[in-house]
């Protein structure tokens, strides 16, 4: 065999090896031809449908992070891999997979357990009225449920199907009708058989790439085994019980304030009823948390180091993709105002808050 023929054969071998992973992706996607409203209705009906699988989340929201604000900054600003087993709202497990171990959340029997392999520790807690987002809230079905909360189904439009976790998934675009939202649109793709949402891409106004994306890479709509969501404390592991889950829970329980019933025209939700307020719904949801001076100072320092931070008479403000954060200073304490809202809406909300919040 001549030298050139050998090189041709080698080139063919290289081409075959390189092309192999691409072939499966090149097969055309075929999804059922259904209108957007019926797809959204199916997603709503599947709100408690069980599922399991591996999820890849990718965010580029550069949020200021402090340890008091849990790992929300890394969840929204980095690539994260999860494994989930969801039997229902009362029994689920979400594992955050790390190269060095795992941090897992298990919910069963009214208790949530956070297992950290590297710390060899389990922390148990009861879900409070309000808390900061965590891994389980960013699974595609959970995030889609928040997006669709209060959304007008008539504004949903069909988008092209795509293959997600090997499934040809029909897609729907949700565009918020409320001009106060800073979200341009959110794209959902669902499993046509079960209605479970397989992928969510959120876009900020003016962006062509998603600010945050969460998608199954493997998926099953079968009910997971009960043992998967049950946590048995391994011998030798440390265990503790947390009365206060995070900074939102702490403020809601102990801060001596009452936020007003309405901020920037958004109506306050019935829960939480403490010092923390949640306003609006879906893609116009607003969260306000009173912060002690110490916590506010830490967040303030973080914000000042972030690119794009704006200082005004109300306070420091940062827009990270569709997510806005504003720290309104009131001397001894401050208010954290956050949500997928336009900067002007956040400023209005902060002014309303400073004028309308009362001491208990």
């Amino acid at each position, binding site marked *: 065999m001549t030298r050139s023929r050998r090189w041709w054969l080698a080139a063919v071998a290289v081409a075959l090896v*390189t092309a192999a992973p691409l072939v499966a992706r090149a097969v055309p996607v075929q999804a059922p031809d259904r209108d957007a409203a019926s797809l959204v209705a199916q997603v709503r009906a599947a709100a408690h449908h069980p599922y399991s699988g591996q999820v890849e989340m990718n965010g580029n929201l550069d949020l200021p992070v402090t340890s008091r604000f849990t790992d929300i900054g890394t969840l929204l600003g980095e690539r994260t891999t999860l494994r989930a087993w969801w039997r229902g709202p009362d029994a689920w497990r979400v594992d955050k997979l790390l190269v*060095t171990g795992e941090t897992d959340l298990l919910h069963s029997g009214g208790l949530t357990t956070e297992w950290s392999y590297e710390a060899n520790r389990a922390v148990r807690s009861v879900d409070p009225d309000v808390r900061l987002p965590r891994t389980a809230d960013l699974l595609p079905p959970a995030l889609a449920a928040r997006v669709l909360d209060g959304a007008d189904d008539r504004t949903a439009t069909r988008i092209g199907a795509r293959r997600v976790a090997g499934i040809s998934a029909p897609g729907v675009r949700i565009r918020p009708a409320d001009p106060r939202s800073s979200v341009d649109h959110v794209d959902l793709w669902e499993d046509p058989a079960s209605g479970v949402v397989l992928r969510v891409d959120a876009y900020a106004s003016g962006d062509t790439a998603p600010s945050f994306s969460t998608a199954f890479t493997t998926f099953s709509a079968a009910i997971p085994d009960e043992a998967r969501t049950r946590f048995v404390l391994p011998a030798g592991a440390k265990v503790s019980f947390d009365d206060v889950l995070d900074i939102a829970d702490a403020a809601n329980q102990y801060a001596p304030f009452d936020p007003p019933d309405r901020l920037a025209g958004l109506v306050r939700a019935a829960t939480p009823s403490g010092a923390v307020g949640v306003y609006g719904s879906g893609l116009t949801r607003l969260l306000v948390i009173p912060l002690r001076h110490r916590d506010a100072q830490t967040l303030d320092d973080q914000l000042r180091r972030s690119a794009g931070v704006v200082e005004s008479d109300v306070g420091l403000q940062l827009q990270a993709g569709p997510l806005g954060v504003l720290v309104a200073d009131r001397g001894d304490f401050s208010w954290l105002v956050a949500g997928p809202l336009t900067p002007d809406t956040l400023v209005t909300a902060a002014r309303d808050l400073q004028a309308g919040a009362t001491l208990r």
Partner: protein
Amino acid sequence: MIAVELGKLLRSRRTWVTIGLVDALPTLVAVLLAVTDLGPRPGTGPAFLSAVLHDGTLFPLAAMAMVLPLFLPVAVAMAAGEAIAGEAQTGTLRYLLVRPVGRTRLLAAKLVSVMAFVLLTVLVVAATALLTGTLLLGHENTGRTISVSGTTLTTGELAVRTGLALLYAMLSMLGVAAIGLFLSTVVRTPLAAALGTLAVLVASTLLLPLDAAHALRPYLLTRYWLAFVDLFRDPILWTNVVHGVLQQCGYVVAFLAAAWANFATKDVTD
């Protein structure tokens, strides 16, 4: 021919010095951990390193996590770079090819020899780590080990999974060996072949965390190396392990084919 190559490998002083150097790092870490009792903060150290403070039987895995990203591939790159270019540099390649043995078989024998070196290194590192781990580190293992997911593994399950992890670590070096062997047929000095292989390794490590290089990730040499940790999750997460094995096979097919294409009809004057 394979027996001849394996004999040369085992008799070479350089083989044992290299293995000793690779083995020195985890041994030093074991001593430091035993003296200070200070583990890495969560998310900062190699996999399993925090766990060995209370369960020393996991130290072979921590040792693998330490040597796999750099020390082991550097050693493999040197061994593979030496395979053909080393013979050429010392002027023995011509005499080697005088024997009634095909060049393709010689390449295969060299690859087997490099992989035997990997096997030997992994076994020595694992055995030393098991010894130092059980003697110096945590003694809380009472026949049950905590999996990464918080479930308990019996001694049998731990042994099987550790065996699979060591096998996976060896297979992860197939790509480095194949690239080194190919470059060894291209250049005249083993150092150039080893450096070329290391350049691929460094490029892969740099590209891996880049979002802009996301489309290349499945092809990057180092992409799945640490997936052996997935064997200690419950249930075992096979996805990346299977992808890792297939990817390494792909590297072997591609670079061995290139080595064969280049070497089979090459004019050998050294």
